[in-house]
């Protein structure tokens, strides 16, 4: 602990702290411009200068990077300090007349006008170097630095050209105290990391408001630390020390009796249909994005807005995007009709926009669904039957100017139509989840032609798989809506419980066995067995099948050159008899 005096106040603070920190501790404000608590002090603006006396020697020092010493006597507002500070601020006013923090500081110091020559009245940069230091020490990119010397000094990327080292984190703009650094973004928004391209978020966030558990996470794809190894600003500000950048994914091994697979689905990637312009036109969005948009806890607070922040006047909803299409998925997504109707209803409810609904067939198959469709018809949603060919922004008439034009063959009218709208919602279909194939391999589950998991029997065993103890629930088995999923999940849970309660299940009866007398010990079968169920008994000089491991494929039986291996219930003799039997008739 070090004792010092600041403006007559006695302060005690840990060794190694700066005068600025000590002053903050006793609530004495020292103005700063080039200082930021998370960046290493630079001592360039010279606004934080204070007069210090130690061991009879008086000097002017910068408070931001001068360490405290025992017995230090600090004057933050002496005549000498104010004289230097005033002049420095006055000079900065001439350099950067448009910099607000400088103007405020000047006002506080009683400076009305600068006596020095103003070069550029629009200039904002005070050359505090916060951006350069942030880019180097926090981001670790070192994409910008100072060029030239003296009054010619500027902050620039190398050669004044966009730098490849820049990772576009906009940290420089964030740290800039005067707003001298601006950033450009096509969508007119600051995009560090976007939540489904709809709005800005930071790398640390609660994924969604309904997240379970409700704790923030670090998005390693957006976090600067995981890009450059630097930053870690969050650890500096979290005094609970709750942030751990070294956390790794853990692999847990849990022993269970039964397994229910409910790995769900992923929405069809609308970028695969280039004609719809998703990713190209900012106002073409997918159903899930729209769902976030209308969510009361979403980025716009539930307001339906275009990319430029205005309300749409016309919205098109395209059904069956990626579904019922030979080029993508032939199956029906089973849900897009109904959620599209919901969207149409919500748009009507929240805006005064015209809603166009492009469908192939209206499939309102559930309880109350058809009635909902009729309600929409009454609400004035315009239903157009036909598959949309493309979306373009090439206007052909005045009315189409600045709009997105949906081109569609209206199969009821038998003509091609052009519908200008402001926003297009793509009702994307359902596909098995990303790691679906991997799961299928791990659990040895067959997949049906549409790549969803195959149930044991579509009618008699709809939640079971061919492996005992593994059950299916939800959209991993087929496109499903919520009520169906809940029902199926209940069924799967009941099946799983029933088996778990019983505690045992029967082993495959069709295992292989090796006739000790016939086996020559060639070990051919040992290498063939995919389940390592066959081992070689050295003492006896024969191969032995482990009944518990054998799944009964019979590969070893077919390969045994001495006919020593048999498969129960599928013995050679039995199959021979079957063959013979076929030709008896």
């Amino acid at each position, binding site marked *: 602990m070090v004792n010092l005096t600041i403006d007559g106040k006695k302060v005690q603070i840990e060794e190694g702290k700066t005068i600025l920190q000590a002053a903050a501790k006793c609530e004495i404000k020292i103005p700063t411009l080039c200082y930021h608590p998370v960046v290493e002090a630079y001592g360039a603006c010279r606004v934080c200068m204070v007069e210090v006396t130690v061991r009879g020697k008086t000097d002017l020092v910068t408070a931001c990077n001068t360490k405290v010493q025992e017995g230090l006597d600090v004057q933050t507002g002496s005549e000498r300090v104010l004289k230097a500070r005033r002049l420095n601020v006055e000079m900065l006013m001439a350099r950067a007349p448009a910099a607000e923090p400088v103007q405020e500081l000047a006002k506080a110091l009683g400076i009305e006008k600068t006596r020095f020559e103003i070069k550029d009245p629009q200039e904002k940069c005070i050359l505090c170097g916060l951006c350069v230091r942030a880019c180097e020490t926090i981001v670790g990119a070192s994409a910008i630095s100072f060029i030239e010397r003296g009054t010619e000094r500027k902050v620039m990327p190398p050669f004044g050209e966009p730098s490849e080292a820049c990772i576009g984190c906009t940290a420089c703009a964030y740290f800039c105290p005067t707003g001298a650094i601006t950033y450009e973004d096509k969508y007119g928004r600051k995009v560090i990391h976007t939540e489904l391209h709809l709005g800005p978020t930071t790398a640390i966030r609660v994924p969604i408001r309904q997240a379970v558990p409700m704790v923030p996470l670090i998005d390693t794809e957006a976090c600067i630390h995981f890009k450059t190894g630097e930053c870690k600003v969050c650890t500096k500000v979290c005094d609970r020390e709750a942030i751990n950048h070294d956390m790794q994914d853990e692999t847990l091994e849990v022993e269970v009796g039964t397994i229910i697979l409910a790995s769900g689905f992923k929405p069809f990637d609308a970028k695969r249909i280039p004609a719809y312009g998703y990713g190209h036109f900012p106002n073409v969005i997918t159903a899930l994005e729209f769902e976030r948009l209308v969510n009361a806890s979403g980025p716009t607070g539930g307001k339906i807005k275009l990319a430029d922040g205005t309300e749409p006047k016309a919205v098109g909803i395209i059904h069956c995007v990626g579904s019922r299409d030979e080029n993508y998925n032939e199956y029906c997504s089973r849900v897009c009709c109904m959620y599209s109707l919901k969207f149409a209803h919500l748009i009507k409810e929240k805006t005064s926009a015209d809603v166009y609904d492009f469908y192939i067939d209206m499939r309102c198959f559930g309880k109350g669904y058809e009635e909902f469709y009729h309600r929409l018809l009454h609400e004035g949603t315009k239903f157009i039957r036909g598959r949309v060919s493309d979306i373009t922004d090439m206007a052909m008439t005045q009315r189409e100017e600045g709009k997105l034009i949906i081109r569609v063959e209206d199969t009821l009218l038998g003509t091609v139509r052009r519908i200008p709208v402001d926003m297009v919602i793509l009702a994307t279909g359902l596909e098995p989840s990303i790691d679906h194939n991997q799961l*299928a*391999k791990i659990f*040895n589950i*067959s*997949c*049906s*032609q*549409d790549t969803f998991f*195959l149930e044991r029997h579509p009618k008699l065993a709809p939640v079971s798989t*061919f492996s005992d103890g593994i059950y299916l629930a939800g959209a991993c088995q087929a496109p499903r809506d919520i009520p169906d999923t809940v029902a199926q999940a209940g069924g799967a849970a009941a099946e799983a419980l029933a088996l778990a309660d019983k505690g045992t299940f029967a082993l495959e009866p*069709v295992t292989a066995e090796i006739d000790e007398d016939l086996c020559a010990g060639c070990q051919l079968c040992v290498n*063939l067995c*995919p*389940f390592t169920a066959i081992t070689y008994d050295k003492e006896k000089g024969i191969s032995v099948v482990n009944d518990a491991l054998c*799944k*009964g*494929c*019979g*590969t070893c*039986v*077919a*390969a045994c050159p001495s006919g020593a291996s048999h*498969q129960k219930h*599928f013995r*050679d003799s039995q*199959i*021979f008899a*079957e*063959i*013979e039997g*076929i*030709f008896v008739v």
Partner: protein
Amino acid sequence: MSNGTFEPRLVGFLCNWCSYTGADLAGTARMIYAPNVRIIRVMCSGRVDPQFVLKAFKEGADGVLISGCHPGDCHYKEGNYKALRRYKLLLKMLDQFGIEKERFRLEWVSAAEGVKFQHVCNEFTEQVRKLGPLYLSKNGGKHEQREA
């Protein structure tokens, strides 16, 4: 043999998990296909011993079909690969026996591919029909008797 057309007798070894289920699906879906293939269920196409095929031909089959899961989908991980290996070797051997290789076929039919099973059956039947009956000489085989 009615209508004077030759109805080949075909034996199909179908794996329990994919092809047999696929055939089942074709049935439950009420698909119509050539009834010539007599199905013998095995747990895995890897169980199909080359002897089974030879036995089938000996017993009077005009063609033999082996059908298993698609590569990578085998219920027993890799039984279908072993079936494939054996199939290729056996084809060479059948050739030496004087059995046309068109009479022996390996197909991947998944549990979901009822339609494919239908196609395979129809196609194979037609293919063997064109070849005509298989004559195996002096082996006590039952072909001659049948044709006679």
